[in-house]
């Protein structure tokens, strides 16, 4: 409880500090809107030209797009500490100050940043979800709402785990390895579309190694009434948990890596 209170307090302070430069903040938020709007526009134009992708119609595709962008940008907004400057903290040796404080490292990293500019991205994703669910004529039930919440939560945790990989590499190599971003941002771009779009190697990558398909696409497809892989209903509820498992594995690696941590600071 104390941790959550601390987190909320940090968020309040950080948001207040960002609002000190209102014009820059407004323009950057607007830029986020243009960015995500552009991505959405690409999907709309593709749907306009091609009408469908395998068994997925226009509404389905908007729904998948919305699911991914809501999940990804919620994570980038509230988990900015991990998705943003975690590698930077390791590289500059600023992580040292975190180690002497009486709180967990991860808690402090989470409390170190927030990115309210992402609100416009989340809004675009939300709009895509609403439009998609309308066009695909989804009949919402309590179970479907619950499953979607589970998918978004587990997806967020998965994304946090993916971003932590870069921080782990940083502990060993000091130099930031941007290659890892291929998995995070590449995963986002790829999994805006349902997993069966891709040839086998990419499908395996995003199902087994970075399980976006299990956390987002399997529940998403079930909500749309077109279950993926022909899996039974209970499997749909279990599969998003893979995101938590993934994070747990990475968290274990991080703990191990921290034992090797040597400060780079002066």
């Amino acid at each position, binding site marked *: 409880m104390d941790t959550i209170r601390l987190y909320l307090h940090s968020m309040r302070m950080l948001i207040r500090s960002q609002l000190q430069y209102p014009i820059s903040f407004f323009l950057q938020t607007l830029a986020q809107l*243009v960015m995500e709007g552009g991505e959405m526009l690409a999907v709309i134009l593709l749907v306009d*030209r091609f009408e469908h992708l395998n068994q997925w119609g226009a509404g389905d595709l908007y729904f998948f797009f919305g699911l991914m962008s809501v999940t990804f940008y919620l994570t980038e907004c509230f988990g900015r500490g991990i998705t943003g400057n975690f590698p930077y903290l390791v590289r500059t040796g600023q992580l040292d100050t975190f180690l002497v404080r009486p709180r967990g490292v991860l808690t402090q990293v989470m409390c170190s940043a927030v990115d309210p500019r992402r609100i416009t991205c989340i809004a675009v994703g939300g709009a895509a979800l609403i439009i998609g669910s309308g066009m695909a004529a989804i009949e919402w039930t309590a179970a479907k709402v619950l499953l979607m919440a589970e998918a978004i939560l587990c997806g967020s945790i998965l994304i946090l785990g993916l971003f932590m990989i870069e921080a782990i590499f940083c502990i060993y190599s000091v130099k930031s390895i*941007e290659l890892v971003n291929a998995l995070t941002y*590449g995963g986002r771009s790829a999994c805006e*579309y349902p997993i069966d779009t891709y040839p086998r190697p*990419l499908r395996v990558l995003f199902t087994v190694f970075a399980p976006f398909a299990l956390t987002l696409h399997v529940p998403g497809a079930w909500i749309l009434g077109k279950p993926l892989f022909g899996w039974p209903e209970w499997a749909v509820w279990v599969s998003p948990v893979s995101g938590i498992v993934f994070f747990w594995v990475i968290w274990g690696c991080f703990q191990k890596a921290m034992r090797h941590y040597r400060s780079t600071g002066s």
Partner: protein
Amino acid sequence: MRAYLSAFRMRRKMELQYRGAVLGGVICQVFFGLILVAIYRAMYTGKPQEIPLSHITSYVWLQQAFFRMLLASDPELTDKIRTGSIAYDLCRPLDLYGFYYVRIMAQKMTGSLLRAVPMLVFAFLLPEGWGLMLPASAAGFAWSVAGLFLGLLCVCALENITMGFTMRTLDARGMQALLNLLMMILAGNILPLTLFPDSWQRVITLLPYAQLLDAPIRLYTGDTPPSSAPGILLIQGIWVLLLTGVGILFWRANQKRLEIQGG
């Protein structure tokens, strides 16, 4: 003239220093290229289009290969504006606009060629229907190289206009991000312009952003036949003159009321 040439050379040498970073960037870009190609391939199996798939995949690879040409800005200049050391540049016996124009040109040209060569080789080696096609004709290829050079001049002029905003507002992260995103969309990086609705294409291809990569790529794939190439190059040339002119006037106006930061 010699001074500008040596500024160009210095910047080029500097850009060649970070070859390790280039490899990471290339792998990232290749990965994104593969994802995009997979999406368009899946779309094409459902409903083939008038424009052949090989043109679309080539479009994707050429866009990815020259990505660095679009998004590269001079971090030193932004720093100088913010810290006030731009005052030193004002003392140089050189035109400020020209000096930074050749610098950004060296950066964009070297950076993108360094990445484009390995990426295009890789794309050529990919199996049929995934990779980069050979140019439609020898004439088309020659025109597209000329078009690419004009595109480079265009993007450098655009970059300097963006920098003009930075001089005015000191912190232009917002404005810079906004203009860059507009560029990514309208240059065809996010979605090939050839897949935009046909009625939109007629307008979009006339905008300055389409002159950067879209125009040369169409000449390469043969979507624009070599016979209409002179007209395309003329449009590009007009935009180069226009954007450079606007940039020069903008920078002049900025220099008159430039606030030097620092103390």
